[in-house]
Structure formats: structure tokens, C-alpha cells
């Protein structure tokens, strides 16, 4: 039973009758007790489960805190990002929900594994770190009556998005690349990134329509995200904005582990905006600057083409004086693709087993290299690869092409129907990423689909024709036999 039920039940209870009253008498105290939570009991759970990051004193300075980005919450401030209240403090239910569901896109996991009572006890204990602020009961943030999403709602939402200048931080296409992005600081003076609105699975407070509308209405405390409930033209605009924000990206990233490479006849377009089939991989997230890359690939008789799409809030070329480096990506393959060879070490190989890198770097274009470790990269002279790139609204779109086969022992030859190991590297130079400081993945697989021959257009109709003819002959022979009799 959800605690919300405690509020509804008494009202119906009086009218329904004594049995219901009795039920209330039994259940309400139990629930109220669960909701109220016991701070002392919560302390024990907190010290086992929470203090490593949030600190024993609740100040967000646990031993693990330094390695986390974003930083763990400082409970002594009483400031919380996710609220459904019009006040500065969250409701107990808000805290309970964050403990239960975690915060997507951060190190805060879901604690649904803990018994519900423990979670309510944690709510009570966490509040006690800023008891002064929680003295008064918070008022719920009212939302206008829900308007469901529609083409018109999305259109109006876009108008509002532009009128209230969400783009200043979140960017014109919602990819967190707005002009104010580099200056943003949280309440504690740490740099903070705006949400990439095309990746709703990382929204801290959830991505349901109500979640998004609530964040817009009440703002996100401790961050630069202000409250908009009094700052839209009409109250309904909160829902239209929600419709628009949720139209900016897919519901989930559809992570995959295999890049399936389609075979095509004729030339492969090298226009980065052209249509490709899509597979998405999830790079390992050392520094969360680039956390997702969409990979598509096709091949024909002579060459293979890779189409990569990724969000990068800052377009940057090398300027080491300012701690800015070139944006770069690379695809990593073993240089030889015999089935029996062991895959090289995923982190750019080692001296005994090097890797081949097909990549792109701002200012250099498409490059080919061999590597036998993160700091031992040797460019291959006379690159055979070509490519084109576009950057718009915080997103790179890149096409790289390479001959399918190579005689050079340092370059792989791609063959259909073979599972080829592939790994991905991406560097956001604007966030100071260079060399081994990057987003990277372990090995994934690439498979070139076998080419489909034109026989599929000939054989089945032929079989059909032969069958029909044979049937007709049988029918005719049978008819003749009947006639003869």
C-alpha cells in the first residue's frame, strides 16, 4: 500500500461504515508511524548504506565523495533538487521517492532493496541534519490541470521554449550547449552542467510528464534552474513545455552490443546528415562529458563507411594554454581479424598485441593509427581513410570511409559474416579531455551482414510458377482421365 492512501482513506471510511472505520483505526496508525519514520532507526541504516558518500555528519563529504560527479548531497543545507513543493524544502514523499528510485545520471542508486520502513526511517534521519529548515510543513506545488501531448501542444511548447529562452542553458536543440552553459555553478560554487533534454533517461527527478512539469514549475534547488510557474504566459504552457521537452529525444537509448553492418550496392553517401540504420553503444563513463554515441555502418564491394553521432556541448580545437584540447573520436579494431587470435587489451592494446585506430580529430580530419597502449600511438603514413563531419546544436555527425580490404598488415580487412571486435573512444576537448582522459568502451562486436544476391527476386517466383504449372497439369490430367471414363 502506498502512503498516499492514508490521506484518502479516512474520508471514505466515515461514510462507508463501522467496518471501514475499524480498518482505518488499525491501518492508519501503522502507516503514519511508517511515514513519520524513526530517525534513530534511520541512523543505523544511514551509517551502513549512505555515509560512505554523504558523510557521517551528512555534509556530503564521505570518503567516496571526491570521486563523484555530481557530488553527493550535503544534507545539512536542507537544499534538495527534486521537490514537488512550493517551498524550499521537499516533502517526506519527495525524499522517500529519491531514496527509492535513485537519481538517474548520478551515482545515487535506487534503494528499493531496503524495506519500506527503513526508507521512511532514512527520510526522518536525513531531515534531522537540517532540522531547523524542516520545522514547517511544506506546501505542495500546484500544477495546472494536465494537458496531454499533441502536435499543437508540442508546437506551443516550442514557442514557449524560445520565448522564455530555455536555450540559454539547454541549447537550441536541447543538447545542453547553450551560451550560458560554461558559466553555470551550483549553490556550492562547483561547475554544473545543464540537463541534455534529448536524454530523458538521465533526468534526475524522473521523466514522466508530471515529473518534468513539476521541475519546470518548482525549479531545481541548489542549481541555476529557476522556477517557471509564474514565468510562462499561460499556466497551461507548463504542460506544453513538457510536451516539447519530451519530444526532443527518445524514451530510452536502446543500448546495443553488436553493430550490424548492412551491405549495399553502389556508392555509400558520405553526407553526415544522410539516413543510416542505427545501433547505439554505451561507452564506459569515466568522465561523463560524452556518454553516448550512435553508430551506424554500411559496406559495399569496395569500402566500409561508419556514421557516428554524439553530443558534445563545446566545439573545440586544441588550445593547450587554456586547457582546451581537440575534440576527437576513434574506432578501435584488432589489426588482424583471424578468429584464433586473442583480442588486444581493450584500452588501446599493449606491446605484444597492438590495435588499429580509425578516428577523427578536430583540426586534423580523419586519421589512421596503430597503438600499443594509451601513450603509444603511431600514426599510419598515407591514410587511406576519408570522411566528412558536421557540428550543429551541440551534436557531431561524422562519416568515415575506408577500403574494405587492405594489404597493409597494420590495417584490418573487413569480411562479411565475421564477428569483428570494435571499441569506441571519444574525447570532449572542451572539458579538458585528451590522451587517455576520455570516454571509452570495452570491446563490442561488428558484423558485416552477408550480401543478399539478386537470386531472391528470381528463385521464389520461379518456384511458384513451376508449382502452379505442375498443379494445372495434374488437374488437367485428372480431368482428362475423368472424361475418358
Amino acid at each position, binding site marked *: 500500500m502506498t502512503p498516499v492512501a492514508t490521506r484518502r482513506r479516512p474520508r471514505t471510511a466515515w461514510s462507508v461504515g463501522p467496518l471501514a472505520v475499524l480498518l482505518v483505526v488499525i491501518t492508519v496508525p501503522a502507516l503514519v508511524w511508517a511515514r513519520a519514520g524513526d530517525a534513530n532507526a534511520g541512523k543505523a541504516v544511514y551509517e551502513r548504506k549512505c555515509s560512505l558518500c554523504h558523510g557521517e555528519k551528512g555534509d556530503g563529504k564521505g570518503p567516496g565523495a571526491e570521486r563523484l560527479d555530481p557530488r553527493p548531497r550535503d544534507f545539512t543545507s536542507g*537544499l534538495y533538487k527534486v521537490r514537488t513543493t512550493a*517551498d*524550499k524544502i521537499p516533502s517526506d514523499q519527495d525524499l522517500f521517492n529519491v531514496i527509492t528510485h535513485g537519481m538517474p545520471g548520478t551515482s545515487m542508486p535506487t534503494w528499493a532493496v531496503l524495506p519500506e520502513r527503513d526508507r521512511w526511517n532514512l527520510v526522518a534521519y536525513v531531515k534531522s541534519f537540517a532540522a531547523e529548515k524542516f520545522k514547517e510543513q511544506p506546501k505542495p506545488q500546484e500544477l495546472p490541470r494536465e494537458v496531454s501531448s499533441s502536435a499543437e501542444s508540442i508546437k506551443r511548447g516550442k514557442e514557449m521554449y524560445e*520565448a*522564455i*529562452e530555455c536555450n*540559454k*542553458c539547454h541549447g537550441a536543440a536541447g543538447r545542453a550547449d547553450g*551560451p*550560458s552553459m560554461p*558559466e*553555470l*555553478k551550483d*549553490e556550492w560554487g562547483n561547475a554544473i552542467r545543464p540537463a541534455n533534454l534529448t536524454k530523458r533517461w538521465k533526468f534526475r527527478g524522473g521523466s514522466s510528464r508530471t515529473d518534468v512539469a513539476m521541475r519546470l514549475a518548482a*525549479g531545481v*534547488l541548489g542549481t*541555476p*534552474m*529557476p*522556477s*517557471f510557474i*509564474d*514565468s*510562462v*504566459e499561460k499556466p497551461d504552457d507548463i504542460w506544453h513545455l513538457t510536451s516539447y521537452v519530451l519530444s526532443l529525444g527518445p524514451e530510452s537509448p536502446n543500448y546495443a552490443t553488436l553493430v550490424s553492418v548492412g551491405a549495399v550496392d553502389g556508392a555509400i553517401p558520405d553526407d553526415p546528415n544522410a539516413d543510416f540504420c542505427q545501433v547505439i553503444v554505451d561507452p564506459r563513463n569515466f568522465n561523463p562529458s560524452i556518454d553516448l554515441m550512435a553508430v551506424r555502418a554500411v559496406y559495399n564491394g569496395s569500402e566500409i563507411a561508419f556514421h557516428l553521432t554524439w553530443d558534445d556541448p563545446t566545439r573545440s580545437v586544441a588550445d593547450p594554454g587554456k586547457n582546451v584540447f581537440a575534440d576527437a573520436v576513434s574506432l578501435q579494431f584488432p589489426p588482424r581479424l583471424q578468429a584464433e587470435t586473442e583480442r588486444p587489451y581493450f584500452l588501446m592494446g599493449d606491446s605484444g598485441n597492438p590495435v588499429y585506430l580509425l578516428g577523427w580529430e578536430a583540426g586534423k580530419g580523419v586519421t589512421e593509427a596503430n597503438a600499443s597502449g594509451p601513450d603509444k600511438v603511431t600514426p599510419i603514413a598515407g591514410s587511406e581513410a576519408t570522411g566528412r563531419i558536421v557540428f550543429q546544436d551541440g551534436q557531431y555527425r561524422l562519416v568515415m570511409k575506408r577500403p574494405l580490404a587492405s594489404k597493409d598488415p597494420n590495417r584490418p580487412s573487413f569480411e562479411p559474416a565475421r564477428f569483428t571486435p570494435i571499441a569506441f573512444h571519444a574525447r570532449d576537448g572542451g572539458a579538458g579531455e585528451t590522451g587517455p582522459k576520455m570516454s571509452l568502451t570495452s570491446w563490442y562486436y561488428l558484423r558485416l551482414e552477408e550480401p543478399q544476391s539478386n537470386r531472391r527476386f528470381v528463385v521464389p517466383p520461379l518456384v511458384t510458377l513451376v508449382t502452379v504449372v505442375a498443379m494445372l497439369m495434374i488437374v488437367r490430367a485428372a480431368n482428362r482421365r475423368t472424361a475418358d471414363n
Partner: protein
Amino acid sequence: MRRVFGMGIAVALVAAVAAFVGVLSRATAQGGGTIEADVKYNGAPMIETIKVNKDVEQCGKEKKIGKISVGPNKGLLNAVVSVADAKGVTTAKAAKPVVLDQKGCEFHPPVLGMLPGEIEVLNSDGILHNIHTFSTANPTLNKAQPKFKKVMREKFEKPEYIRVQCDVHSWMLGWIAVMPHPYFGITDDRGVTKIENVPAGKQTIEVWHPVLGTQKKEVEVKTGQTTKVAFELKK
């Protein structure tokens, strides 16, 4: 008829005299002393120059942010001078809202003094600003003010110095001094401000500056007289 007229005059005269005496007695009840504070800063001004990368039309291409602004004769600008724990006054409320404007991507005035009460936040720029306060006694505020929202009314009920910023234009920095009584002033470019009608007697005069901090001095305020207080703030 004449008698009636004469009585009328007499009544009017009495009333006028009574009113005059009333005004006088109120003035003496208020104490009537004036404080003239003279705040100096014996150092180099601290001005940050920022290149603007957005809304250039409204904000200009460059912003000069005076963290410590010094006028001629080393007068310190925008320091708040007040009577600390003014005796004789318990609470005071503002009669009408004070105004904080956002113009040219700057807060005007950069340091706003007010009594507890309402404030009108204007958006004269016609672009998105967000009014983000960092307060401890009053609830913190972070509200968007898009171009079509010309005025927002907010309340600050408790005395404190509140930092105000706009996250969209990170150089925008202002202060709101919510004072518990009307005995305060903000220094001009000579570093001078006058506080009138300060209750007579021993008073502590405090000067506060966002970067240079606080200094206090004791003075004797005398009815109908101007008392001069000189401060010199250091880093």
C-alpha cells in the same frame, strides 16, 4: 457674524500652533540627530572586465564589474552604513515596494537598501534573467523572469544582506540589504552618506561592504546636530 468670524480665526490659530508644536515634539521624539559617514578605501579598485558572449545587444560587448569601486578622494562606493541595534526602534516596515532593476545586464542599484517588505524586480532588458538569491534568514529565491515578465513582486521579511545573481549572465551580481530600521544609507562615489533622525545617545555605527567586510565605531548622537564618522576599510 463678526464674532463668529473672529472665533473661527482664533480656532484656526490655535489649531495651527498645536500642529506646529506637534511636529516639533515628534521631531524631538525621533531624536533628530544626523550622522554623516565618510568611508574611504586606501587601495586599488577591483574591477573585473568580462567579454560578453550572448545578448550583446542588451548587455554590450564588454562588462566592467566593480567588485570594489572607488571614487575620487578614495571614497568607497556602495558601502552600507547603518546604526547597529538602534535603540528606541523595534520594528519598521516599508511603506511601498523598493525597486531593483535589471538593465544592461546589471542590477540597478548594485546595492539596494530596504526595510522588510516588498520589492519590485524589473526586467528592463527584455531578455531572460533569473533572480537567484542566496539568503539564510529569508527563503532563497530562484525564479525565471523571461522577456515578457516586466515586473515581479517578491518579499524579504527578515533583516540580512542578500546576494543576488543571475545564472544566465553570470557576471550579474547585486546585493539587497534588508535593514531592521530606517537608520541606514548607502555611500555615493565620494564614499559619503547621511543618516537622519537617528535617536540621540550613544550609538554604534556599522559599515558593511560585500568584499571588504564590516567595521564598527561608537559615536554620541546629539539632537539637532550632525555627527561625522570616518571609516577606512582595508582588504
